[in-house]
Every structure is written in C-alpha cells, then in structure tokens.
C-alpha cells in the first residue's frame, strides 16, 4: 500500500472517472508490506488474504477509515440502503457462495441496525463477518455520540465477537474472525473497530489467519460409534433420513444422496435442508414439520430409525416432543456436540462433519435394511396426502399457482429467496427444489423482510461466481416486502437481475390464519389493506413494475419478468383467505397434521 492511500481524502471522489482504481497503483498484492500502514488498511489486507470478494454495508462516521481503505481494494463494496439489508444481503451471499458473507456498518445505530441480520445468521448457522465502527477507544464507556456497546449487544447472537485493541493486531483479529465464522459449525462473528484503532499507523502486517484453537473440530466421527449406528441402520425396518441445513453447509449433498440411494432409505428434509436431496426423487418425501408435507410427517411419525444429519431438531420441525418420531432410534450426525441430545435424545451420536460422517456410514453399513414394505408405505402416503389446493371459479388467484408458474418457467439452478410468512411456506411447498444453495430463506429467526436484501445478496453472489444466467426469484409477502423494499434501490443502481413476486393478500397472512384458527377470527392489526401499489412503487424506484390479478395474466407476467434485464416487481393480488396447509399446530403431533382448516 503506497503512502498516498493513507492520506486523508478530503475532496472525496465526486468526479473520479473510475472509483475502483483511485490512481494509487496496483492495490492487489502489496498490502502492509510498506513500512507504515493504518489499522484500516490492515483490516482490508486481512480480508483480502482471507479471500473476501464482496462486502455489503452503509457508510458512517466511525467506520470511515475502513471505507477509505476499501477505496483502493479489490473487494467489491455494495452500498445498501439500510444496515439490516446489508446483514441479510451478506448472509444470503454466503449461503449462495458457500463463503462467509461480509457486512459493514458504523457505530451506534449502524451496529444496532445490523442486529436483526446477525441474529438471523446465528439462528441459521450462516457464516458471516460483521465489522462495526466504534467511537475512539478513549471515549468508549462515556456515552459518546453514536456509541453503543456493540460487543455487549451482539454477544448472545454471535459465535464470538471481538473488540479491536490496537492497530498492530487488528488485521490478525479480523482474519481470525473471518476464519472462525466458517470453522466447524458456521455462524456470525463480529469485530468492533474503534476509530483510533483503524486510523493509527502500524508496521505490522496481518499473516494468514486460522480459526482459534479448538474451534475447528475433527471432521470424522468416532469409528466405533459409526459401526454401532451402522448396525442399527441395517436392522431397521422403517429407516428414514432427515437431512438438515448442516448437510448443505458441509457440502454433503452428494454424500447424502449416495447414502440414501445406496441403501434405499426414504428421505425427508428440514426447511433449511431443502435442496440437499432432490425433491423429484422417488425416495424424497420433501420437508417435515409444521407446514411440511403430510407424507413427510407420517413417515417421521412412524419411522423406527431416524438418521438425522445436520439438524438441531427445532420445535417447528418436531412439534410436540412427546410425539416426535416416538418409536425411532435416533442416529444424530452433527458437528456441534451441544446439539446432541439437546432436544431429542440421540441413541447413536455421531459428532463430525456431515460429508465425512455420511461417507463413513455409507462404508460401514454392510447390508441395506429390509425396507421394501416401508418404502411402499411411504409411497402410499405420498398418494394419500399430497400437497394440494383448489382453484374454484368464484375465488381469486391462488398464490400456490404463482409459485408453480415460476417453477415451471425457470431452470433447476434458480435461486429462490423469501420473506417470512404464508408466501414463504407456499414457496417452499409448491416449488420442487433439486439442488443445494438454491433455497435462501430465514428459518430460525423468521425475519420478515429477509427476501429483498437476500435477493440482492444472492444475485451478487451468483454474478461473482460467473453464474449470471441463473435466475433469482424472490417470493415476498406484502407485509414482508414493505419492511425492506428500500433495497430495491440497490438492485436498480447495481442493475441486478432479480424478480420479486409479491404474493399480496392484503393481510399479514400467517397472523390472519392463526387469528382465524385460534383467536375466533378477530383480525387485530393483521389487516394490510393500506399497502401502496407495489407496481407503481417499483416504477418509482426505476424497476419494472407489473400487476397481476387473474390466472391468465400469470404466465405472460412471469415470462416478461424473467426476460427483463434488471429488477422487476410483480404485485400478484392473490386470494386473501387462502391458508397454508397442511398444518401441525404448535406443540401438536406431526402425524396429526390438519389437512383442512376445520381439523385445527
């Protein structure tokens, strides 16, 4: 890094021809090699060394030194409209790219605005590094302007967080935080950067970083435990795989497919596990849980050997714990020992990396379980309890139809992002997922507003990987869309090829559904008839805006949107009264799912 880059930049870059070059010579390979650089330059050098290619963020006072160092970096920075959007975009970028996402914000409100996105990444075990500016060290604790105890606020929602203590070590700290985010069970990390630390000069160059000791565990499960589990699998009469998000994070989809197919074992997934196993495979029963398929929930209720990989047995999956897979011996594969027997007792705990342990299991099982009758039973349940919806003449456009129309019009590698609510459930139920990292959603935290910034992050990731041809479709609800739609401005500015399908039912629909089922139809604060006209709003942002009210308009609108070069919003006015079914009520038995409302 040349000395000029360390000079204060007083005049800004308002008329610079090409801001990525900045006139400081080759920025790529000489970071920190000069006698003096700043802490901020050290931060950026560490990020480049770690392989970070893209950052999402919002400028602000305390983070300015880092942004100034990014000015001459190879890292692409995508300015977002709101820090929450930056965190979600980074999260989704990481999900699609398989690398930690990176987001930046300033101190105080910048950092607190990241919190929702960090918590979301934490709940879904998504690798992400957040860098936050902080007031200068000497002001910390004095309630200075834009001071928040960011480390304190984010402590329970990060894998680990750091307060940077000096320009000499800050590069190494950032490098370690990046590696820690993806080590073992992935998750978000954060480094809080006081402004003096990033401004001060240092002679130290950050070295290649590694995760801290003890955080990158042995990928192999104990061999004896694998043998014991293999014997249980061989002896099973009703074996069932349950593939969770950990399968995708461990890049274990191939191993998972090979294991299930080799031994003829039917497969369910969790919601985060969608895409780990192709849903058009005969063995696949799609995903289980509250709004999972009836056949997945029947299978999970009746299995005698549940081979659960990379899942934490969330309550939305298990329903009431007393009736969850109540006759199953549980083989539980997880990289995080704390997940073993946390919610569901593991008879055969296998601690290790999903990819490696599935290979170990595939090798250890000598004989396929005798499960032909069980496979027939699963196939029968598929016939008996299909996902379905009706389209009577006197009812408005059904949202499920919109999801199916997009699925039919796009390729298998299409990336789907969603907000949270009814539209999210329909997008997961009525789209046939076949590949990992194509389903990008907010599962554990259930963050309304995730969809649009996630589509931005997913699009940028696909483009960065040279996969410009893949489609990115965001299914959103009217309520969800309203929460983060300002990020549409980013999609317009960056000319991102995304289609946002708002399934607009003029309700915060999942709440309305619960009010009808459990609160005597009292629609308190769930009525969203006050929404703006989203197609016109899209035009105001500079995107293409379309509106669809009936079946015959769906296919042409889908085609126009997919052909359009740039961001599109389609405001689908769908049946406000449509409900998400089947449904296992909170704490209920999976096998007792309601197929229609009056069974709730």
């Amino acid at each position: 890094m040349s000395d000029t880059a360390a000079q204060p930049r007083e005049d800004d870059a308002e008329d610079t021809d090409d801001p990525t070059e900045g006139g400081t010579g080759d920025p790529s390979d000489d970071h920190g090699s000069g006698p003096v650089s700043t802490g901020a330059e050290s931060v950026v050098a560490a990020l480049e060394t770690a392989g970070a290619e893209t950052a999402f963020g919002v400028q602000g006072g305390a983070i300015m030194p880092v942004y100034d160092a990014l000015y001459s970096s190879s890292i692409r920075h995508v300015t977002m409209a709101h820090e929450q959007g930056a965190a979600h975009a980074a999260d989704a970028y990481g999900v699609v790219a398989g690398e930690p996402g990176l987001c930046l914000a300033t101190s105080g409100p910048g950092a607190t605005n990241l919190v929702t996105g960090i918590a979301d990444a934490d709940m879904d075990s998504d690798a992400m590094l957040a860098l936050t500016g902080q007031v200068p060290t000497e002001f910390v604790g004095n309630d200075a302007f834009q001071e928040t105890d960011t480390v304190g606020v984010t402590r329970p929602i990060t894998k680990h967080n750091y307060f940077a203590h000096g320009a000499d070590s800050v590069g190494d700290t950032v490098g370690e935080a990046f590696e820690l985010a993806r080590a073992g069970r992935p998750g978000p990390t954060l480094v809080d950067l006081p402004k003096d630390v990033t401004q001060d000069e240092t002679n130290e160059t950050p070295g290649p970083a590694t995760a801290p000791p003890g955080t990158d565990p042995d990928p192999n499960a104990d061999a004896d435990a694998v043998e014991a589990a293999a014997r249980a699998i061989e002896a099973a009469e009703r074996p069932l795989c349950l593939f969770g998000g950990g399968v995708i994070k461990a890049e274990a989809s191939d191993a998972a497919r090979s294991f299930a197919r080799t031994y003829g074992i039917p497969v369910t997934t969790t919601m985060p596990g969608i895409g780990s196993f192709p849903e058009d495979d005969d063995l696949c029963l799609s995903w289980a849980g509250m709004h999972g398929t009836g056949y997945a929930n029947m299978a999970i209720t009746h299995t005698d050997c549940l081979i659960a990989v990379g899942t934490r047995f969330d309550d939305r999956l298990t329903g009431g714990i007393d009736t969850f897979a109540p006759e199953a011996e549980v083989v539980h594969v997880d990289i995080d020992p704390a997940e073993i027997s946390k919610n569901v007792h593991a008879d055969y705990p296998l601690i290790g990396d999903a990819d490696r342990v599935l290979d170990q299991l595939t090798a250890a099982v000598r004989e396929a379980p005798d499960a032909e009758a069980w496979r027939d039973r699963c196939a029968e349940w598929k016939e008996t309890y299909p996902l379905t919806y009706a389209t009577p003449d006197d009812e408005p456009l059904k949202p499920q139809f919109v999801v199916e129309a997009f699925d039919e019009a796009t390729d298998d590698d299409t990336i789907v992002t969603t907000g949270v609510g009814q539209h999210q459930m329909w997008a997961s139920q009525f789209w046939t997922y076949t590949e990992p990292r194509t389903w990008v959603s907010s599962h554990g935290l259930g963050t309304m507003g995730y969809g649009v910034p996630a589509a931005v992050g997913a699009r940028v990731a696909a483009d960065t990987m040279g996969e410009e041809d893949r489609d990115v479709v965001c299914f959103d609800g009217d309520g969800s869309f309203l929460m983060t739609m300002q990020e549409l401005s980013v999609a317009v500015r960056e000319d991102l090829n995304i289609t946002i399908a708002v399934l607009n039912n003029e309700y915060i629909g999942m709440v309305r559904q619960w009010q009808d089922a459990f609160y005597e139809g009292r629609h308190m604060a769930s009525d969203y008839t006050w929404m703006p006209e989203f197609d016109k709003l899209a035009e105001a942002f500079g995107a293409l805006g379309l509106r669809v009210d009936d079946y015959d308009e769906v296919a042409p609108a889908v085609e126009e949107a997919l052909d359009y070069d740039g961001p599109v919003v389609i405001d689908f006015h769908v049946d406000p009264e449509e409900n998400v079914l089947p449904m296992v009520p909170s704490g209920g038995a999976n096998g007792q799912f309601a197929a229609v409302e009056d069974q709730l």
Partner: protein
Amino acid sequence: MSDDAPDARPATDGGSASDAGSGAEARPAAADQPAPEEREQPEGRRNLEGIRIDPVVEAEHDSRRAVISALVEDEPGVLARVSGLVSRRQFNIESLTVGPTTVEGHSRITMVVEETDPGIDQIEKQMAKLKPVISVGEVSGDAVTAELVLLKVEADDPAAVHAVTEMYDGRTLDAGPRTITVQLTGDEDRIDDALDAFRQFGILEIARTGQTALARGDTPTAPGEKPGTAGEPTTHGD
C-alpha cells in the same frame, strides 16, 4: 377453501411442478384425505427431555447438584459470556466464582448448578463452545469445596460471639461497640451449621463468595488440566 369447492381451473393442469408429481386428477382434495383421527398412530412416546420412553430402559432424570469447573482465558468479557450463557439457556445456577490460576492469563470459573444429567451435559457443552473457554467439566463427586463468608452480627454479647467464632474456626475481622464482623470458611454444610449458630446474636449482613472447588489427589479439576505442576493446562481441543 370450502369442502365442496369445484376443482380445477388452470391451476393444476399442464404438468404441474408440484410435489405431488402425479398430475391434477390423481391428487385427492385435502378434504378427502383421512382426518387426523382416522390415521394410524404410533404407540410410542418421548419424555420432555426428548428421550424415547422405552419400557426396557425407562429414563427419568432428577436434578442434582454439580460443581462445574472451567479454565478460561482471562480476557475482557469472559465472565459476561459465561453468565450470559447461563441466563439465556435458563440453567439453574447457585453460585459462580472466578479467580486466577497457576498460569498467567488463565482463570478458573467454578459454578455450582442444580440440573438433571442432560442439563449438566448441556452446560458443559455450551460452555465448551465459548471461545475463551479452554477446558470445562464437572468436578468429580468428592471434590474439595469451600466457601468464604463474611458475617456481621450484633455485638450485645461479644464473648459469646467470640466463642461461636472459635468453634467454627472463624476469624474476627472487626469488633465495634455495636457490631462484630466475622470471617468463616468451609464447605457448604459447615457454613450452614455456623450460620445457624450465629443466628442467636442477630445477623445484620452476610456476604458469601459461593463455592469454589478442586478435584482431589491426581484427578484434574478441569478435563485435561495437569495437576501438581506449575500450570501447563492443556489448551483447546482435548
């Protein structure tokens, strides 16, 4: 969606991509599917700890007292991380003490908890995930435990207070015209007995440190910790 809704509009025609995969005609309407009570039911159940209730191996767990010892890196926020974890996960904790060890930069945290065996297991595993935690485990049952108590009583009968203090090997730290402050140490039973004895004088204030503990003999207090040396506790990854 009414039960007798006429089926099919464009919706499920034309090679639907839906999970049913068998076309519109083959899909029974939701209302025609077997109702919950008509479906086959498994007979098994799990208890609230997620353990399969097996007539052969019935598993029921009562809570018990356990002493957990952790070696941690002495860095800012480590106590906040541990206490935050305990409160967030609703672990039932009786006391928590922190202090230096034989190794510079390492501290020992000792917690007394009241939990079931799976709960104790969770505490250990969740603590082990904290980056500054080097090693953590339950101290074996016959650990040496002790607590320090400061006790302020009324000084109406100084001689009697002194006698009880002697009886429990305590020390008088302050004696004034109206109050006497005494220091006591010992395991929990001994402290409880002493407090009972002092109650007759009128206890004004108490400050207790909570239990701290070391394993007996050659047994390491935290897993992997090397006893009897000037430190060198093992690092992560044991």
